[in-house]
């Protein structure tokens, strides 16, 4: 079953707007929540990540909001730009045991930012 559920599948935002992508999980053992960004023809690359001991992490225009009790986290892209048009994946992992290093990915959100 899908360990991490991501929505929406696609998102169209006007330049300067806010893009919001949401993810939910069930496994409370997850302790690392990264977001990956993938441009056409490239492999995904780490964008930003959060640990569950904080509720928010901001890097430039990108912010992760984390709600531990609801088991949800989201990516907010402020002042969205056409260059942000890409596919975004949320993920989760457990940082110990035999699954060390393994990421469970959401299904991805294709973001298009119109100029």
């Amino acid at each position: 079953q899908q360990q991490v559920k991501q929505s929406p599948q696609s998102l169209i935002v006007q330049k300067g707007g806010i893009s919001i992508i949401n993810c939910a999980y069930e496994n409370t053992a997850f302790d690392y929540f990264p977001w990956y960004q993938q441009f056409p023809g490239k492999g995904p690359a780490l964008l930003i990540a959060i640990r569950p001991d904080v509720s928010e992490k901001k890097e430039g225009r990108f912010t992760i909001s984390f709600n531990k009790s609801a088991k949800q986290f989201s990516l907010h892209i402020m002042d969205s730009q056409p260059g942000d048009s890409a596919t975004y994946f949320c993920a989760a992992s457990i940082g110990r045991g035999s699954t060390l290093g393994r990421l469970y990915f959401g299904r991805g959100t294709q973001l298009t930012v119109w100029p």
Partner: protein
Amino acid sequence: DVKVTQSSRYLVKRTGEKVFLECVQDMDHENMFWYRQDPGLGLRLIYFSYDVKMKEKGDIPEGYSVSREKKERFSLILESASTNQTSMYLCASSLETSGPMEQFFGPGTRLTVL
């Protein structure tokens, strides 16, 4: 810069052929991964390896096998390719660490099985 390279960007094979996809990383990473990416299904883990000669099944290992004879190289093998294995295949690597585990991805191999 970490570099993960994959042997081919595009590959066309026939049903029943044995197919080898090669991945090499240059950062001495312990962990290596093979994913397939399909529209609407995201990244699905096929196999991963946390050490030389070690392998673990991911979520969709059926029809695939892997080989890791050297730390830097991780091969994905399709023993008898089928049309439903037409997909984008992505290799990734990461350090063995108790901290956050960033995975570094290669550019992918788009495989078409006719």
